């Protein structure tokens, strides 16, 4: 059971399900419209099943997938200049901590998009940057404010002033009629 619920297995199984759904959907179309989708989907569905078996074996054996080295061994040196503070060393994370961080990374993306949807680009961007830089990463207020102000000014000048882009105003403001 443990093997079956691993992320790798679930992701492989997702492909099987997706292609099964696509095949079932395609069979409902007229012959001309379904020919090419079925020509592609049927063999790929079989491939997805084979991939599921391969991944099951990998998970069962407890093999580590081949990965590029990503651990930072020592602080980074820069040819011409250095950033405001030296880069933090990357800490080695346990399995649970890693999963938590992954979910956090995904949550940041979803949270930012939800903020844009409700509050619009300008306010969501300011809020997101302040929360991410100061509260999540514990950078100083001074750096947070300067960085946020520069980013916001760039967005406003480039997109609103020059390009006349229609940045999304946010549902709340639409509801309020502002």
């Amino acid at each position, binding site marked *: 059971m443990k093997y079956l619920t691993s992320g790798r297995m679930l992701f492989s199984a997702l492909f099987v399900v997706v292609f099964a759904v696509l095949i079932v959907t395609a069979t409902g179309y007229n012959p001309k419209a379904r020919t090419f989708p079925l020509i592609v989907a049927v063999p790929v569905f079989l491939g*997805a099943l084979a991939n599921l078996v391969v991944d099951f074996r990998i998970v069962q054996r407890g093999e580590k997938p081949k990965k590029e080295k990503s651990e930072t061994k020592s602080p980074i040196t820069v040819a011409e200049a250095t950033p405001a503070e030296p*880069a933090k060393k990357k800490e080695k994370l346990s399995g649970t901590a*890693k999963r938590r961080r*992954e979910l956090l990374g995904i949550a940041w993306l979803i949270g930012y998009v939800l903020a844009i949807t409700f509050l619009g680009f300008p306010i969501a961007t300011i809020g997101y940057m302040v929360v991410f830089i100061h509260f999540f990463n514990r950078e100083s207020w001074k750096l947070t404010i300067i960085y946020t102000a520069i980013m916001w000014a760039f967005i406003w000048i480039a997109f609103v002033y020059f390009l006349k882009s229609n940045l999304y105003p946010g549902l709340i403001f639409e509801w309020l009629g502002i």
Partner: protein
Amino acid sequence: MLEAMWSGLTQVLSFPALGLMLLGIPIGLIIGAIPGLGGNLGLALLIPFTYGMSPIAGFSLLFGMHSVVQTGGPMSSILFNAPGTGPSAADCLDGFPMAQQGKAGRAIGAALVSSIAGSIIGAIGMAILIPFVRPLILAFSPAEFFMMAILGITFIALVSGNSLLKGLLIGGLGLMMAFIGMDPITGVARFTYGQLWLFDGVKLVPIVIGLFAGSETISMILKGGSIVEGDVQVGNDVFDGVKDVFRNWWLVLRCGIIGYVIGLMPGLGGEVSAWVTYGHAAQSSKHPETFGKGNVQGVIAPAVAIHSKEGGALVPTLAFGVPGSSAMAILLGAFLVLGLQPGPAMLKEHLDVVWAMFWVVIIANIIGAMALLAVAKYLTLLTVLRSSLIVPFIMVFVMLGSYLTSNSITDLAITVAFSIIGYAMKKFDYPRAPLVLSLVLGGIAEKNLQMSLQLWGASFLTRPITFVLLILTILSVAYPVWRAINKKNGKPEVAA
């Protein structure tokens, strides 16, 4: 001819054309570097300003901007894995791994000089071919487009990295995504599940941005640190990248010609030229296994092709008034604004304007690339910024780029979904390139196959150019297999 050529050059280098070109260049570089904007937006914005200008002055502004959009595009691909333009997504594959290894300067140097080389090849091709273009353009039909797309799709095997099975799976997914929307022949809405926003098919930019840049932000939040991994110096190797282009001159020439030919075919976009040449570079390399891990040839090939393709796209636009790309379709509007009618008459009556375009494409690219080369060393410093500062920067541009593609909040949701999918693909060793490759080429292949079958039946395969492309496709599949067998048997490889 020489007189018109000289006249075009002197007019481009005189006031106000030169000033307008110099104004267009930074606009193009910035638009190209910001994910999601693209040159079409720049053209649409600048065309109104050309009212009342002379044709050469107007085209100096428009081509000055448009020529360098793709020069700025690879910057964000290399530095942040966030493609500035659709075609420059191919530069993510090796450019970003180079940045992670501290070689962002080398990748940028290579991409910029490749841009110059590509634009020169494209412009020369345009100049050579314009007088004889009619039979060549007419030789391309849906049958040739189909075989060209199939040839590109066969490169999935080459961009699949360690797992061919996973690569084919992802390639299949990309093809199925290309089928989403209205079937071009029957008009049936396929795989839309009642969602109106899927009727036009899926948009490439929000998917590519999510797949590469969005997934990278999740990785960076997870790992912390900076983009550069390890103890390395950055910014000192820009000139190495410049030298790489000269070392790989044969690849540059081949990819330049391939990009140019693809540009000649109306309807095949810059993405096709970038991905086909990337596949070609991997296929012809002695070390295809290093592609996707930071091989500079993987940066050079698409950068050359994207630029030479523009020269090719200009040919049908100028000679027939048939736009070779979406940008050229917008430019057709500019022709009318400036009082010109593209077509055979233009080649006779306004040959100096045609030559002026030739010079603007070359000069703007040289100036644009040189300007970026001058600051490349400082741009690479962004790769050593810690994640607390670089992640919000990338995230904001990811979302802006995705949204501005069509001013739709739905695109943001697509980007988030593909960020998560891209992260999972990266984590579980699924290559991401086949998805983009097949998504770009799948729709083209299906539409043109249907048309070919209706026009000629199965005998379309016997058309001369189609047949040559078919042979190339068979060789493209057979060569890696032959090489793998040789490798397994321990025989020395013959240089490709």
